[in-house]
């Protein structure tokens, strides 16, 4: 495995103006600004191998965007070193950015009023892509994303899903070694979401592109990534594969129960009642209780008359919510 991104002890401080309150605060703010230092990143260290698909996750405001901006050379860190593909992103900018592609989920790099293909041609000039290479790449992207009929239409006529497909294609025209995706599936319908995921996987396999994606959609993480980096309050909390986090919480089960009659209250030693509505209830075993089907059935049928029950593992979202809670994010 070749290390492609090496992030060592990166710190990033922002100076933020502090607002005065009270009388004449507007004037005070205008003339005498007090500043306070906010630490957006604290000693962030991680590494990513070539060909990885990495999920970069964390709650809002954790420092995800700041990290992506540093990795793409938009921001310079306050301290620490970062080497990506042998280069320092914020030095020799022009040489570095040729190797990266970035898709910001919420904003577009394509032109609003002009056919998509024209925007692509502009990108061809910007990245100085040779004609034959451009043609070849476009063909691959066309096939994988079904762009053919979209290319002649301006961005304003496209649906959100179509836009995202074009956006992805646009970021890949110069065949970057590293692709940053900022919430690539936000707002997409189920079918498109799957198509986008398939495409990301396809590109990763086909071109061996290293992909770093931020998302709040945990099914993205589960379907795509082979590594996650969890950040919270500017610090890296976990890096490694997602399965080991899943295993950590695999002992926790949720049990949905249907009772034979209505009970006013449900109580069971070693279990927490998550919800209860007349004949139905959902329980969860406490960390101290190891779930065992036979024991559970014995225990509950002593107190209540039950018809049916179903045991589930924690969903990915719940796991993450627990993780955030554990780290007090």
């Amino acid at each position, binding site marked *: 495995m070749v290390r492609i991104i090496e992030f060592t002890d990166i710190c990033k401080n922002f100076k933020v103006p502090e607002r005065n309150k009270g009388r004449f605060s507007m004037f005070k703010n205008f003339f005498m600004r007090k500043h306070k230092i906010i630490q957006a990143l604290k000693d962030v260290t991680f590494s990513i191998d070539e060909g990885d698909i990495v999920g970069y996750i964390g709650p809002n405001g954790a420092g995800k965007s*700041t990290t992506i901006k540093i990795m*793409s050379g*938009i921001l310079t860190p306050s301290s620490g070193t970062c080497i990506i593909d042998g280069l320092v992103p914020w030095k020799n900018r022009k040489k570095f950015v*040729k190797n990266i592609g970035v898709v910001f989920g919420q904003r577009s790099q394509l*032109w609003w*009023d*002009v056919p998509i293909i024209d925007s692509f041609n*502009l990108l061809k000039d910007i990245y100085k892509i040779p004609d034959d290479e451009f043609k070849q790449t476009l063909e691959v992207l066309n096939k994988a994303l079904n762009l053919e009929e979209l290319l002649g239409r*301006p961005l304003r006529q496209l649906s959100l899903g179509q836009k995202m497909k074009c956006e992805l294609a646009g970021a890949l025209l110069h065949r970057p070694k590293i692709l940053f995706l900022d919430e690539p599936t936000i707002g997409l319908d189920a079918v498109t979401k799957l198509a986008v995921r398939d495409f990301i996987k396809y590109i990763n396999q086909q071109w061996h592109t290293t992909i770093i994606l931020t998302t709040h959609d945990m099914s993205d993480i589960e379907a795509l990534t082979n590594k996650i980096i969890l950040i919270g309050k500017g610090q890296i909390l976990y890096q490694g594969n997602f399965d080991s986090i899943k295993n950590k919480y695999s002992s926790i089960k949720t049990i949905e129960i249907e009772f034979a009659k209505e009970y006013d209250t449900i109580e069971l030693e070693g279990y927490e009642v998550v919800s209860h509505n007349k004949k139905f209830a959902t329980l969860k075993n406490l960390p101290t209780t190891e779930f065992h089907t036979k024991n559970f059935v014995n225990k509950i049928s002593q107190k209540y008359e039950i018809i049916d029950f179903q045991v589930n593992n924690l969903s990915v979202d719940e796991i993450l919510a627990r993780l955030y809670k554990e780290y007090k994010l």
Partner: protein
Amino acid sequence: MLYANYLKMHLKSSFQYRYNMMFISFNQVLINISEVLAVYLLFKQFDSVAGWTFYQSLIMMGIVYTVYSLTECFARGYDEFPKLIQSGELDRFLIRPVNIHYQIFGSKIEFSKLGRVALGIVISIIAFLNVDIEWTALKVIVLIATYVCGIFVIFGLFVLSAGISIYTIENLEFLNIITNGSKELAYYPINIYAKWLTTIFTYIIPIACFNYLPLSYILEIGTIPAWLCATAPFFGMLFVIPCIIFFNLSLRKYKSSGS
């Protein structure tokens, strides 16, 4: 060539709204004609202002219109720089292997401003035809330098206000004083203003270098030594250099502090 491609894209975009563009152009020409009328009425009252006749100062106005609108047309990206910051476009520029200035130029080309450029040229021609000038080769050179100087100075002002907006982020109106204010001021012979204003707009923001001074030389009016008036536009051009340096420093600051 990349710039040709940018031009093509902006043409295509604006042709999506061609009636809108035509209307804007027409509208701007109308507004400017009314400005010319205002100056005309002023001169009708006084015959001459600070030793300048109506047609003589009309030349000045024509030059200002031409250079200002030409710069606005092609360097609008600097003028609307706060928008580029807010929309995240600037971040996008920073992750492309092309010089930032090149991309800012490419980001916005406003063809509707060409209506005003045309008006400026028409006004200048009318004015020149109504003024007695003994043309010499040197005067032609100075006139060309005047236009170039005008474009450089206005461009410098745009770059300067773009640089300031990196610190303020918000699109503060006071930045408009720098650009628009300087333009309005340049309609009249600069010696009509108070001494301190004249000093500022000669030595700090060299507005006088592309209207009052070179025209004094070409029209042979005023008391300032001719060689000084003739070389003024060449010195005025230098104004753009510190502006660009300031902008580049501001951009470096942007990269370390973000938005």
